């Protein structure tokens, strides 16, 4: 399956993503497979990866990765080329009536209040840790469902600023890194449409996954449409 996706995207699986800004828009419920594909691809090339898991817990990604032939646990704890940010837990920890001990140090807490600098610092720190590893490969940042932040109350402006700064952060280093963002899109939702429109114009590869227009089918789950901006 993974080879087929590479073929479909017309990329070389041994040297991809290279200084790319990839956005995946999911209009169905099944676009998540692309995130697993990219994660698998990057880890097989021994890229340093920062993964922000906002929609699922680590164990989910780990189980799927094992089925696809990579071991996230090994990559995270021993090889140290994967930094997994448990976004779901951290976000969930913000939702409480009385602040707990960890609230102040939680970067998502300030993010939801409109201050994204702590979050960016955290990712920036992770990336600079990778450079200490003296890995020759370019770092990759993957966010599984960026728009969960939007649903949690972050403003569109913050999200756009976040995407912009993240990309700058990745490309400013000596190794030009890549940014991969998955976002769930809803039809007729102004906030997501606005953010998506902006992301669409600054990305290098846009992939959209949607259901079949003809309705539910057991054998064919949906369609994938991809646009490459080669000129960037």
């Amino acid at each position: 399956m993974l080879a087929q996706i590479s073929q479909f995207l017309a990329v070389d699986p041994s040297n991809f993503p290279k200084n790319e800004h990839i956005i995946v828009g999911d209009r169905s419920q099944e676009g998540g497979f692309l995130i697993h594909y990219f994660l698998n691809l990057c880890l097989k090339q021994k890229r340093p990866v920062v993964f922000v898991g906002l929609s699922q817990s680590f164990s989910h990604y780990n189980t799927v990765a094992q089925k696809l032939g990579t071991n996230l646990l090994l990559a995270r704890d021993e090889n140290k080329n994967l930094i997994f940010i448990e976004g779901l837990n951290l976000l969930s920890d913000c939702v409480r009536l009385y602040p707990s001990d960890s609230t102040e140090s939680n970067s998502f807490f300030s993010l939801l209040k409109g201050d994204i600098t702590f979050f960016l610092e955290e990712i920036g720190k992770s990336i600079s840790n990778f450079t200490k590893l003296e890995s020759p490969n370019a770092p990759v940042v993957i966010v599984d469902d960026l728009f969960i932040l939007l649903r949690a109350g972050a403003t569109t402006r913050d999200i756009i600023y976040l995407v912009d700064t993240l990309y700058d952060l990745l490309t400013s280093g000596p190794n030009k890194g890549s940014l991969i963002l998955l976002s769930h899109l809803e039809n007729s939702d102004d906030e997501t449409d606005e953010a998506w429109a902006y992301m669409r114009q600054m990305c290098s590869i846009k992939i959209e996954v949607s259901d079949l227009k003809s309705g539910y089918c057991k054998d064919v789950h949906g369609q994938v449409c991809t646009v490459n901006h080669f000129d960037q």
Partner: protein
Amino acid sequence: MASNLGAPSSFQKRAKIKIGQISGTRPSLYNNQLLISTGIPSFDNVIGGGLAVGTVLLVEEDTYSSYAKIMLKYFIAEGVMTGQSIFLSSAKEPPQQLIKELPAPIDDTRVHSKVYPSKSVPPPSTGHPESQKSITDNATNDNDKMKIAWRYQSQPKVKSSPVSNIRFGHYYDLTQTMPVELIDQVEIVTAPSPLDTGPLNVSPVIPYMNAHYCHLLDQIRKHIDTGCFGTAQNTDKRKILRICISSIGSPLWGEMGGVRANGEGSDPSLPLFFIGLRGILRSAFAVAMITVPAHLFHDRSTVKKMERLCDTVVKLDSFAGSEKEKNPVFKEYHGLIHLVQLPRLNSLIPAQHETSDLAFKLRRKKLTIEKLHLPPELRDPTGGSQEGNTLLSSHGNNSGCGTSQSSKLSF
């Protein structure tokens, strides 16, 4: 069983796989997740065997929320029958009322031998120990007769299911209520409703969040912590916690139909509540069933947002008060049930459902969910059968089983 049949053979399995140690659970056949039953076996079937532990089931209520309430009662009743813990929160009606109205379990010898551990409650069916004994006698007699190969002697005759010792899913009778003795055996915690607590004068950590939701989440956290339901906590008697929340998002919770209090923009409180809940449940032996009056949200996108943040989402669409009630096509059923979303757990894609045409039916004693079948067309197809066809096409059901109106060809 193997031990009383003589010396252990070298062909025995090394380790016994301990499946179903936790009461009322079984592993999924798709992704090896631990499942619990919703209390409605036909509903378990359509959502892939049951609800995975650590997930959230969102039920979008029908207009009068009567069927959603029945489903919630089934869910609680199943928790009572399997001895699980229950955390209940309800704003519209007092939780005690819900508990009183639980459906009664249908008599079943296996159920009673499990659920009545003390002799204070006599099992209603007399003489079931004898019948059980005779079954085992028969089994041993059969074992003696078996001379096919000695190494199979220690094997049980029929492996009915991997969880033969623990019952998964029960049947209930809606016309009767559950005996109080059964309810008293399990731990039921009720959270004070927003009406009891009144307006909370504390502002939550995230300023734009509804304080009632935060309060509820804090209580769930506390309960998971004190009851040792967390995955990180060690306990000798592992139990599953069922979290049942009825009609969250109704105006009683201070919800303004998905709009912020100042009327500008959408309110992220309820989506945030679901993010919070999902994060809590992922590291707990707990399952949540939440009903939401989705028709009260004036913006459809708010409901969509919530759906994305839950694991299993079903939508009840009752015929009560609608045109479809009188439609002969649907006379067998009381409403449609839409599988909006199935959980994507430890797998690339969600479990695939067979069909999306599902309907529910409330009989006198039980609620069942089944595939929507059209009634047989008994009238002459060339004559006055057009009525049924037009009704079907107006519903957009292009199943192709009705003859088209213009066609005069017969084949």
